[in-house]
């Protein structure tokens, strides 16, 4: 299905490709390329420096000796391997939170698109209203509520809000409307399949590209989540990477010089390690999210 949808624009592009290339345009875009990539290159270069080189050598190139692997070892070992623990926490929050969010949004969006039940339009309108309330606005109220129930400072306080993706539901509703033809559902019903079986064996496969898109964006949201875990967690062993890295930053800047300088190397290396998984995920799955995003932004 995506192969067919992808083929026609590609053909249309190839007819346009005969147009003359514009060097000016390419140069302007090279500037944008530099803007996007140079800070990341700076991070790589400086995470590869020894503590002394970090302060004495130019930022946009590597130092005298290549210290990256030594720095990685240092980061993983520091403070009894707290970084590894944070990394594991982030993986836990992201996999359970984003995986759950994508699954719930897929089933819910499919229900709204393919089943006619009273209150369907109203429920969709309520969820759409939920899109305009971002996580950051809810963070303080969520903390207040969760401390009342007594689940602050537990993984649940991070996981439960992560499971909810109103934007994912919206995207899946739009996607399911086209991706799952009514005729297939009808013939499966005539064959006597239960509704759950129809979803599991037929609809889920057709919804896969949309599911991957929602999963990726939920993954970014949970992996990068900072405000909520900052508020609801106190115990460092439950911190995700984002809160942990900022704790190191606060340590490095707390004034006691000497101890601070070594911590900068840890922060730079830790930052580098924390962005690698998402960048790999986006590169590996680009076919999915690009076609999925097209659905969400075009159909209004």
């Amino acid at each position, binding site marked *: 299905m995506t192969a067919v949808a992808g083929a026609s624009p590609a053909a*249309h*592009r190839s007819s346009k490709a005969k*147009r*003359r*290339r*514009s060097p000016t*345009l*390419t140069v302007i*875009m090279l500037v944008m*390329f530099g803007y*996007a990539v140079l*800070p*990341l290159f*700076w*991070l790589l270069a*400086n995470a590869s420096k020894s503590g002394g080189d970090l302060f004495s050598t*130019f*930022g*946009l190139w590597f130092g005298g000796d290549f210290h990256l692997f030594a720095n990685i070892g240092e980061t993983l070992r520091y403070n009894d391997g707290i970084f590894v623990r944070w990394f594991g926490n982030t993986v836990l929050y992201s996999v359970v939170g984003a995986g759950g969010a994508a699954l*719930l949004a897929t*089933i819910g969006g499919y229900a709204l698109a*393919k*089943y006619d*039940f*009273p209150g369907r339009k109203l429920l969709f309108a309520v969820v759409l209203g939920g899109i*305009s*309330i971002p996580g*950051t*606005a*809810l963070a*303080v*109220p969520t*903390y*207040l*509520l969760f401390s*009342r129930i007594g689940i602050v400072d537990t993984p649940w306080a991070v996981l*439960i809000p992560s499971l909810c993706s109103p934007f994912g539901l919206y995207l899946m509703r739009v996607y399911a409307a086209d991706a799952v033809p009514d005729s297939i559902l009808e013939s499966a019903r005539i064959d006597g399949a239960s*509704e759950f079986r129809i*979803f599991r064996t037929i609809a889920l496969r057709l919804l896969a590209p949309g599911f991957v898109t929602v999963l990726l964006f939920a993954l*970014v949201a949970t992996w*990068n989540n*900072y405000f909520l875990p900052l508020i609801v967690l106190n115990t460092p062993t439950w911190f995700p990477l*984002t*809160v942990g*890295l*900022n704790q190191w*930053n606060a340590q490095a*800047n707390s004034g006691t010089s000497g101890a601070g300088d070594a911590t900068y190397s840890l*922060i*730079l290396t830790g*930052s580098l390690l924390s*962005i690698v998984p998402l*960048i790999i*995920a986006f*590169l590996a799955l680009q076919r999915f999210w*690009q076609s999925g*995003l*097209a659905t969400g*932004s*075009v159909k209004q």
Partner: protein
Amino acid sequence: MTAPAVRAGLPRPFLRLRVAGYAFFLPFFVVFLVAVVAPLAYAIYLSFFQDRMIGGTVFSGLANYTRAISDALFGAGLLRVALFLVVQVPVMLLIALGCALAIDSGRLRWPSLFRITIFMPYAVPAVVSALMWGYIYGDQFGLVGQIGDALGVAAPNLMSRSWMLGSIGNMVTWEFVGYNMIILYAALRAIPEELYEAAEMDGAGAIRIAWSVKLPALRPALLVATIFSIIGSFQLFNEPNILQTLAPAVITTSYTPNMYAYSLAFNGQQINYSAAVAVVLGLVTVVVAYAVQILTARREKTL
């Protein structure tokens, strides 16, 4: 085989579909209630109470709201993010639009390389982005200072009072310009080929096609991008919160409304007032986002 199913009457299959529809929607809705509706309702409830020295927590009506509206710190924060919104959002969206049009034009070398790399910063956590840019701006091993030294000029202190908002604007632009570019690019790809053919037959050039075919088709996607950016600006928290460690004198605890609500709840222990501030901020966000939507719709009608 099919005959009994039909004879069983219309209500049964209809009922079956209804039950299945509710059952599929229910799990999402339960989480939505717990994660969105309940905190919101609880915050609104809390905002009507006050902690008094004598008498404990008492119902205080709209007192927290009248206090929030006349609170100078809250007002200054709102003004600051409004200024941020008015400058940063148009700049970011114009760059994103330019990039999307350039990649779609077919006149660019390596279009997919540009598409992927400009999008990449979106995958970087705001915390890492803020730390990285903060160090680049900073005076310890900052790149800005090093470049200034190399050129023999005094580099501006990008984390001083006058530069800070622009410096945060640069971080946010870096993080989100590629995301918006991808949304706009996806909308451009969906323009039917016939529209281009018709325009070319009318003798329209590349610029003319961009203006009369592509831009109108981009309007819904641009509106979505604008609304999300407006929400993001009003809710600004992560970047200034991280930079606070690096520039505590410039970024106060009420630098943005969200930071203010946070510090009221945690450092000031004023939970009820913090809830009111969060609610007012949410209302302002929704009203502005809605107003932009209505203004755009009205202008489309008059065109």
